[in-house]
């Protein structure tokens, strides 16, 4: 016992170093985007408050650009309304009574694009109705998924996070695969699992598949930028240019799938049974 104490006293510096470095590295390696604790993230009360304050101050400088973006979005929605109005009498156009995907408007108050695992903080939280696993979309398409919420803020796993994989499909022929960021360039992502007998051209639109219970079907993700055939298997290696400009994104919407629980329960039930 005495010798053990002597060893500890003699090597206390090395021991503390090993302990602290082990804690740090295990925090880094074991990070799981599905079990993120909001207290240790930028969406905690203190951090959220500061980011929100600074963001309010900074937003005065970019009001003009923000107005421009919102006007462009309004224009698009006005055009969409016209199309829907025209189709109203069409019997094939079904109107659902309840809204499955209500939107909540939010602002990005903290954002990174250059790390391997990028996160965002938004200024809406539990009190505003945001939950874990809500989807986040911007004017141009999908932005990310909520990982953790505090009362007033939420931490969003950006699409630019190598641990996030989204189910996506080619709009024109409905072939689906997995979209994942490769931690390289914030403008591009990789799209895999599309069999190489399908006809794919540069410029084809990639949208969400609607399988994941997070995003509705058909939300923009990007366009095919580069098509490569793999030698080792029968799938394409596709590079997608993301439609969202992650570097300048500010106004986003939280999508809440009210039927998510039902879908997940049903899927789990089916998995248990068969």
């Amino acid at each position, binding site marked *: 016992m005495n010798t053990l104490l002597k060893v500890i006293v003699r090597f206390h*510096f090395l021991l503390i*170093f090993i302990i602290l470095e082990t804690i740090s590295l295990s925090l880094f390696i074991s990070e799981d985007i599905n079990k993120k604790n909001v207290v*240790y993230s*930028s969406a905690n009360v203190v951090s959220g408050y500061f980011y929100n304050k600074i963001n309010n101050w900074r937003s005065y400088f970019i009001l003009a650009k923000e107005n421009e973006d919102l006007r462009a979005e309004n224009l698009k929605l006005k055009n969409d309304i016209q199309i829907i109005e025209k189709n109203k009498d069409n019997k094939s156009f079904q109107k659902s009574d309840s809204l499955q995907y209500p939107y909540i408007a939010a602002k990005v108050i903290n954002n990174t694009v250059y790390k*391997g695992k990028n*996160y965002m903080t938004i200024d809406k939280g539990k009190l505003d109705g945001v939950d874990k696993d809500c989807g986040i979309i911007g004017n141009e398409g999908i932005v990310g998924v909520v990982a953790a919420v505090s009362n007033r803020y939420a931490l969003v796993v950006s699409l630019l996070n190598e641990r996030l994989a989204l189910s996506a499909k080619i709009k024109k022929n409905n072939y689906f695969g997995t979209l994942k960021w490769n*931690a390289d360039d914030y403008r591009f992502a990789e799209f895999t699992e599309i069999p190489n007998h399908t006809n794919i051209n540069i410029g084809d639109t990639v949208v969400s598949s609607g399988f994941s219970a997070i995003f509705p079907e058909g939300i923009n993700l990007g366009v095919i930028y580069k098509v490569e055939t793999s030698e080792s298997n029968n799938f394409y290696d596709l590079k997608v240019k993301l439609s969202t400009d992650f570097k300048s994104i500010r106004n986003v919407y939280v999508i809440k799938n009210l039927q998510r629980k039902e879908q997940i329960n049903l899927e789990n039930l089916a998995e248990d049974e068969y």
Partner: protein
Amino acid sequence: MSINIIYRNIIRFFILIFLQIFIFNNINVTSFGIIPFVYILYIILSPFETPNWLLLITAFFLGLLIDIFSDTLGLNSSASVLIAFIRPWILNSLSPRDGYEVSTFPRIYYQGLVWFIKYAAILILFHQIAYYFLDAFGFDNLGLTLIKVIIGSFITLSIIVLSQYIVYRK
């Protein structure tokens, strides 16, 4: 160490965290998004007499606080604990023949520009190597990671050396 110096270090600790999170984290110097890591100035400027174990622990919490605000849990704390660990050896190997003079600090004012650049550059380089290799999580993009390490170290070193002239204090 006098109480005054301890207070000064505690205040520096929080000021540097604040500057890092709200100013330097938003400065992307290149198209790779390299940011200056000014918070390690705390470890660089800690007095010679700081107990080594204490510096390890403060470095850990320094990194952890930066991590919590930048959503990089474990990344900055690993890198800053590493440089707090190697600092005693660096100080030893750079020490003048009869040791550092009493009541001086590891600053340009006392030790000279050349000494400070050597000392800071080694610590910053180790920090950047740990940070970017851990962030890339391996040696996949070796070329890009090395470029980030070199440019990042250079930018951080420049700002840290400049800061010594801007905040000019004994």
